């Protein structure tokens, strides 16, 4: 083994998105030293791409009057189709108003209540109260009883991340960007840190810490059509699972967003429908009210995505060279509204589809969007299986979202989990000591060095990493989409098992020297295929429909047998994940009717 650089710190945070940075700030405020690792400069993390907003039941705007954490709690639990942990949801909805106000204190320019009368696009009249003027306002998002989504025009994730990163700078937290964690170091009981590879020069670096926090975001890029940033490959999840003792929770729960632009799959935020946009079919008929008379375009995301797919299957899609799609219509919102409140959407339509949404229709189709599953942790964010390992944000499954996440609940989750788990991480770290054996570290580094050597020399074969990846993406797209059925899922599992074999025979075409990008992809591919297998195999086993998991052969929710969470382990040498199940924590709201979209099928 060659010499390698080692950094030692109290708290190691893998991921500099909103969740990771909020955790770092909490650790700093508790007097702890931290290092944040990130594939990219923090401000380029995927969190900055969130446009729509963050849910908090402030109840300041007229359409939010009467809202409170109880109602937010109920919406979240119903939205999750009773798959979430209710103690987590309760803690979350109570904390999030504080989180929004604190972000305001730290500089987020939230849009504010403007007093006076207004007419909504659908003709409804309302009056914003004088006494609420200047407080943080909210917009409408799907699956919520009130207008609850706080926003800054359509750059909410951007302003949140910039404000959060400014705090990280102020506290002087150490950030190492262009560094990728490629494996966890642990002794079977305790996590000691990570082995990382520099994306600047390819060197391996060891990070040793009293506690390690995974904050690496989602895995959207396992799918060929995803709204996610290209760096969302789920690496934090598979390096945790790779330990053999840390499980991933509910990986089969994958969210599709109703409005990805065809064919670039860039997201049009739910804010577009929240602000009054319609979905139209090939006859320019507004079809959502036919299916969901009450919530229309603003039913839960899983419901809208299914209705759209159903409508396309019934022959009402617009044919195109990229397959059938539907239209999103925001023309009636008016130029002024579109060019100010929805400016980012106007820019995206112009730049990537050559469309002016003030005058033209936007071609859309449901697109992979969010990973409800992730590293399974308890309500403190402490991972199952390893002491000193925590997870936050989209990469974690402390399980706020169950089988369907509400729009606007994810940004909110990143900040709240950063606050709550950050505190628990700090408590743990203050009581922990840095004890480890040098040999454990050496063994892990050697293992990674050998993997790299083998990929470069082609010792195990010469499979092309990009080909395997393409086949994996297509398999998930074709067989593990919005509607699922047994035979398709079996096809996916079979194909992915073949890809899993091939992923272990990858050999590089290029030299692999330095920061070589092919090597980076090759190091990830096996883990990515494993995640794809966890999704497909978990979905195959779950013979019911719940939230985003819609089985055509099992269209009903089955609380008797399936009111439980899937835990997917990957024991060393296994060809399939080992599945286990645990009960869902129900503290307040017994399973019932979802209230809207309950006929979805």
């Amino acid at each position, binding site marked *: 083994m060659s010499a390698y650089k080692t950094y030692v710190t109290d708290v190691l945070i893998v991921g500099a998105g909103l969740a990771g940075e909020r955790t770092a700030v909490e650790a700093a405020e508790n007097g702890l030293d931290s290092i944040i690792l990130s594939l*990219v*400069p*923090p*401000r*380029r*993390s*995927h969190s*900055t*791409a969130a446009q729509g907003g963050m849910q908090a039941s402030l109840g300041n705007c007229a359409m939010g009057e009467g809202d409170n954490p109880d109602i937010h709690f109920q919406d979240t639990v119903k939205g999750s189709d009773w798959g979430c942990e209710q103690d987590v949801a309760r803690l979350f909805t109570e904390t999030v108003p*504080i989180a*929004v*106000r*604190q972000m*305001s*204190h*730290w*500089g987020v*320019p*939230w*849009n*504010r209540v403007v007093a006076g009368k207004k007419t909504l696009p659908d003709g409804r009249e309302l009056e914003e109260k004088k006494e609420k003027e*200047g*407080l*943080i*306002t909210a917009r409408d998002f799907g699956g919520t009883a009130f207008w609850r989504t706080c926003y800054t*025009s359509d*750059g909410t994730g*951007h*302003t949140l991340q*910039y*404000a959060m990163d*400014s*705090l990280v*700078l*102020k506290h002087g937290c150490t950030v190492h*960007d*262009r560094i990728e964690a490629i494996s966890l170091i642990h002794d079977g009981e305790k996590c000691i840190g990570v082995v990382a590879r520099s994306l*600047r*020069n390819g060197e391996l670096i060891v990070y040793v810490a009293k506690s390690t926090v995974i904050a690496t975001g989602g895995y959207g890029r396992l799918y060929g059509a995803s709204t996610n*940033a*290209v*760096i969302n490959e789920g690496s934090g999840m598979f390096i945790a699972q790779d330990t053999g003792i840390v499980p991933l929770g509910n990986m089969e729960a994958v969210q599709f967003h109703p409005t990805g632009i065809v064919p*670039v799959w*860039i*997201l049009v935020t739910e804010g577009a429908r929240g602000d009054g946009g319609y979905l139209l079919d090939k006859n320019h008929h507004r079809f959502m009210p036919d299916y969901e008379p009450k919530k229309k375009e603003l039913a839960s995301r899983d419901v809208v995505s299914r209705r759209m797919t159903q409508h396309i299957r019934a022959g009402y899609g617009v044919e195109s060279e990229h397959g059938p799609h539907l239209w999103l219509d925001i023309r009636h919102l008016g130029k002024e509204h579109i060019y*100010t409140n929805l400016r980012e959407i106007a*820019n995206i339509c112009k*730049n*990537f589809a050559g469309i002016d949404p003030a005058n033209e229709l936007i071609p859309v189709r449901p697109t992979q969007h969010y990973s409800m599953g992730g590293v399974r942790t308890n309500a403190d964010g402490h991972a199952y299986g390893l002491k000193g390992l925590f997870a936050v944000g989209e990469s974690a499954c402390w399980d706020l979202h169950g089988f369907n996440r509400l729009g606007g609940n994810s940004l909110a989750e990143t900040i709240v989990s950063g606050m709550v788990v950050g505190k628990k991480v700090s408590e743990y770290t203050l009581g922990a000591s840095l004890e480890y054996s040098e040999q454990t570290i050496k063994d892990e580094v050697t293992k990674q060095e050998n993997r790299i050597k083998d990929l470069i020399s082609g010792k195990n074969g010469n499979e092309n990493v*990009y080909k395997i990846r393409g086949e994996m993406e297509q398999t998930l797209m074709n067989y593990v989409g919005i509607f699922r059925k047994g035979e398709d899922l079996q096809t996916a599992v079979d194909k992915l098992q073949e890809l899993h074999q091939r992923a272990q025979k990858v050999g*590089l*075409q*290029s*030299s692999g*020297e*330095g*920061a*070589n*990008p*092919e090597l980076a992809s090759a190091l990830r591919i096996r883990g990515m295929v494993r995640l794809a297998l966890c999704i497909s195999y978990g979905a195959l086993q779950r013979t019911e429909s719940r939230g985003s998991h819609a089985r055509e052969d099992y269209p009903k929710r089955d609380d008797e047998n399936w009111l439980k969470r899937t835990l997917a382990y990957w024991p060393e040498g296994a060809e399939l994940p080992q599945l286990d199940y645990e009960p869902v924590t129900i503290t307040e709201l017994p399973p019932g009717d979802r209230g809207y979209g309950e006929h979805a099928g």
Partner: protein
Amino acid sequence: MGNRTLTFKIFRYNPQKPEVKPYMQEYKLEEVSGMTIFVALNKIREELDPSLMFDFVCRAAICGSCAMVINGRPTLACKTLTKDLPAKISLLPLPVFKLVGDLAVDTGTWFRDMAIKTEAWVHTTKEFDPTALEERMDNKTAQEIYEPDRCVECGCCVAGCATANIRADFLGAAGINRVARFMLDPRDERSPEEYYEVVGAEEGAFGCMGLMACDDNCPMEIPLQTQLSFVRRKMLAQGLKLKTEKVAL
């Protein structure tokens, strides 16, 4: 669309291997409909040359990762459609920033240094009170702050700036815009004197030669020159005040 064959001339250099001098490498690709430089570069990497280095994250012109010089102009590669370019396309990394390799540059470190130098965070003596309502703000003020806050730190304005290309310490339009963002924010309690320390000198608001390249190059269409003159006016007023105070002493 007529099926064009595109010829890409791409800058190649790996600072890890200084013995290989920088050179331009040529690749040919068939153009497809809706092709962006993002699509093209990935195709080149996956089918022709897996060693090629470049940066994309959001691929939606939101994150600022992918700025490069495309046929002479600094811009975001992900939102550049090949149909708007001639069949010969030259790609160079942004100048001013440290090269990571080929088309990838280290804008992250530059912007972090700038943010630390200008202390780009809200300076307040107030403690956050978790039990209190948020402080009120006029919606118009919030939107005014958001305008400069929209900067994605892509570096296009800096790369195209004559001053930044010769003065390493110049804050650039992005830096001055960032300062403007905090000046506009009533939550920030810094006094004009304190701001003067940050941007009153040659490397700040007065280094600009007024060539306006930043305005033209900003992919977010932020009116950078307007933000610059706002900061300058404030600093001039402060500069005069400082002078008069000195005289009075």
